[in-house]
């Protein structure tokens, strides 16, 4: 009896412990996205400047888990329109998304998230409604999401954790504005935006509101598939399926390589759910990825399917309303501003050069040199079988069951290797040897052969045959059934500092009409020392909002805003 009481007591204690710590554990390491955009209303052809914060829901500090973020722009009911991948450094990322001229006018939504956030459903994703108008849309009959008019007292300063002061409240055209930011918290990183206040604007949550809303959001009870955090680089997730039965295939080896002058390879085996993951480091930036399955059994047809990292659970179908006359006037003005800026080539976007990555780690298939043959050293030969016969004595092409097969003579065992070697064409693992048979001396620049069996990690290959062509012939080939070819877009960058330069201000012949006066995605606030921000007004007389959002190193969200007025006078101070 005493023993059973003890057991009951221990059981109860375990239940209490599990219940308590299960709740805590569920929240540990959850990431939350917050994104600040320069504005909420755009004209197609302009850029959206953004700053993305990935925060830890527990500590409220910048998360150091995810290194990859995703931003997508989706139209109402039309699915995603633009997709960009961002590189997160210390929980922050910034960039600019150029809106194509062809975008239709209407309501759009920006969504920002990381792969790890999918483990909490989509509750920690960031959503922001915006309005985009086509530059050539003269009718402007499009509808917008439920929007709010700006506060009549928009000039009032609203500050949380940071004081924001301007040297004046009313400025003339082309006049210098000095904004003083005083941080109340510890060191912080903020984004600053100064934009013309539209008559209507979709509601925008501040970072403070977003972080406060976290604690009251109920826990998602939905059963979710685990998503690995991308804490090193982007993960390419996919699965292998049997084409006939549509069942997943486990233990299949998926090979990944890229077009290069050197053979390169990465591989992953599928798990019991047929899934595989490949790490796409900087080497794969902007490259075309060639995926294939190694050794598909004879008579079977397998295929690779990759996951869409931007996929959303639901289409965005908001309730839309007709916009007011004021708003349409604002859009017409914005269209004209864009027209002037395009005509005078006064775009805000600084040259968005891709960041140069020095010496990215290439997964080379071998690091020694084999036997190298340059076909140009010999008489011209029409095709690869002829090259093999004439200048590659260590290689033979035979036919087995009507299919060509390549074998390499092993100089150590003094016999031809039983299995085919690993064949690479322009750095890519070849899924079908037919792709090289037609190549002659005119196309081939270099052939490299390794006669001995080679290891690449856990995979063993009966020699290597690498062919480098003069004009990247691999790009003209079609992938076999078990293969897949896809583009790995570069990470989104750009939009560092956008402002009107003093030189432009001095040039009186230049019409400078700006609705975005200043955008700085990364301004460091040093403790309690104040920081000054300086920019110029343009020829566009309007009401402007100065908005700063950010996060301090100790996890305090910062959100401040104030308004200024630009009136149609050359310089208010001078007057």
């Amino acid at each position, binding site marked *: 009896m005493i023993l059973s009481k003890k057991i009951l007591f221990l059981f109860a204690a375990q239940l209490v412990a599990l219940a308590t710590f299960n709740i805590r554990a569920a929240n540990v390491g959850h990431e939350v996205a917050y994104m600040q955009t320069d504005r909420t209303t755009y004209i197609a052809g302009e850029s959206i400047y953004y700053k993305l914060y990935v925060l830890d829901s527990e500590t409220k500090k910048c998360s150091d888990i995810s290194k990859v973020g995703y931003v997508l722009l989706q139209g109402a009911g039309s699915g995603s329109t633009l997709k960009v991948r961002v590189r997160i450094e210390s929980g922050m990322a910034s960039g600019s998304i150029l809106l194509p001229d062809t975008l239709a006018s209407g309501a759009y939504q920006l969504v920002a998230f990381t792969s790890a956030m999918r483990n909490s459903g989509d509750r920690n994703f960031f959503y922001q409604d915006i309005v985009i108008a086509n530059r050539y849309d003269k009718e402007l009959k499009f509808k917008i999401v439920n929007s709010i008019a700006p506060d009549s007292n928009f000039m009032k300063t609203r500050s949380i954790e940071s004081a924001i002061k301007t040297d004046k409240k009313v400025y003339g055209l082309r006049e210098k504005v000095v904004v003083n930011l005083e941080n109340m918290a510890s060191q912080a990183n903020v984004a600053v935006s100064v934009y013309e206040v539209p008559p209507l604007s979709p509601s925008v949550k501040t970072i403070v509101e977003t972080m406060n809303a976290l604690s009251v959001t109920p826990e998602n009870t939905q059963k979710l598939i685990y998503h*690995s955090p991308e804490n090193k680089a982007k993960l390419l997730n996919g699965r292998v399926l049997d084409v006939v039965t549509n069942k997943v295939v486990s233990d299949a080896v998926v090979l990944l390589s890229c077009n290069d002058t050197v053979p390169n390879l990465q591989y992953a085996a599928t798990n019991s759910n047929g899934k595989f993951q490949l790490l796409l480091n900087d080497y794969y930036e902007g490259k075309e990825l060639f995926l294939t399955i190694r050794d598909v059994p004879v008579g079977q047809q397998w295929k690779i399917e990759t996951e869409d990292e931007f996929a959303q659970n639901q289409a965005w179908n908001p309730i839309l309303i007709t916009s007011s006359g004021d708003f349409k006037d604002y859009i017409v003005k914005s269209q004209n501003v864009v027209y002037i800026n395009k005509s005078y080539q006064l775009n805000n976007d600084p040259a968005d050069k891709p960041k140069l990555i020095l010496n990215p780690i290439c997964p080379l298939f071998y690091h020694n040199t084999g036997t190298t043959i340059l076909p140009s050293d010999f008489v011209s030969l029409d095709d690869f079988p002829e090259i093999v016969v004439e200048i590659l004595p260590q290689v033979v092409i035979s036919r087995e069951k009507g299919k060509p097969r390549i074998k390499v003579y092993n100089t150590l065992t003094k016999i031809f290797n039983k299995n085919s070697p690993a064949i690479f064409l322009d750095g890519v693992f070849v899924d079908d040897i037919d792709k090289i048979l037609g190549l002659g001396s005119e196309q081939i620049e270099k052939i490299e052969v390794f006669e001995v069996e*080679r290891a690449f990690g856990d995979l063993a290959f009966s020699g290597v045959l690498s062919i480098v062509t003069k004009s990247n012939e691999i790009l003209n080939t079609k992938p076999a059934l078990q293969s897949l070819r896809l583009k790995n877009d570069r990470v989104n960058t750009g939009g560092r500092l956008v402002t009107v330069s003093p030189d432009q201000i001095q040039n009186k012949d230049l019409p400078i009409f700006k609705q975005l006066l200043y955008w700085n995605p990364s301004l460091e606030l040093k403790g309690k020392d104040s920081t000054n921000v300086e920019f110029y007004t343009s020829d566009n007389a309007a009401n402007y909002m100065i908005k700063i959002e950010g996060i301090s190193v100790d996890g305090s969200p910062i959100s401040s805003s104030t308004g200024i007025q630009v009136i149609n006078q050359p310089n208010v101070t001078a007057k």
Partner: protein
Amino acid sequence: MRHYIIFFSFLLMCISMHAQTNVGSVVPPIDSTFTAKLTGEFFYESKQYIGVQNFNENWAQSDILLSTGEMIYNVSLKYNGLFDEVIWMNTSNFGKFKLDKSFIKEFWLKYEPSFPNHFKRINVSEPDKSHQPDIFVEVCTEGKISLYIQRRIRVSGTETIYRNDAYRNFESLESSPVYYIKLPSNQYLKLNRIRRRTFLKLFPDKKKAITKIMNANNLDVKVEGDFVKLIELMGKELF
């Protein structure tokens, strides 16, 4: 009171258990998939020798620092002193592979885990002379002056042995280490044997000071351990 103790100890146990299951069950071991892959060619041992050709006769759990800066942990390695190659036992297919030399920067044979034998790939070519291939050397001491030992094994002769019903010739092997002293000028001094006189000839201007160190610390240059100690002290006191 006893109930409270049991309750809290159980509570602590549950926390630790839960902490482990949370990580273990949720985060798959993705790192093993994403680590760099060793590359090399199959190692054929077609020839038999008398004596050992490897620095470590048994497979040693080892760590490798690759030329890309990536680390690979706990792989089975042998350092072959006869061919100056690193042999890897791939435990997934039990194949022995000679690793691509240029891919390996350093490796640690953890034969005795607390005292791993640290090797690195160096090039001892002299600027004005013909280029020598890279070699693997054991790192004995590194500082202002460093001492590296190439654990070379060489063929010392041929022996005729009655084996498998016949007399056969076998090459016999012997250990023949080569000592490389790296000076602050990055120049390498080579010693095939460690002898007091030969060693002192390498440093004519420091002969007296070196002798003083040797006498003060009772060091015998011929003993490898003492030689390493001497280089260490020279680095501290003379350079």
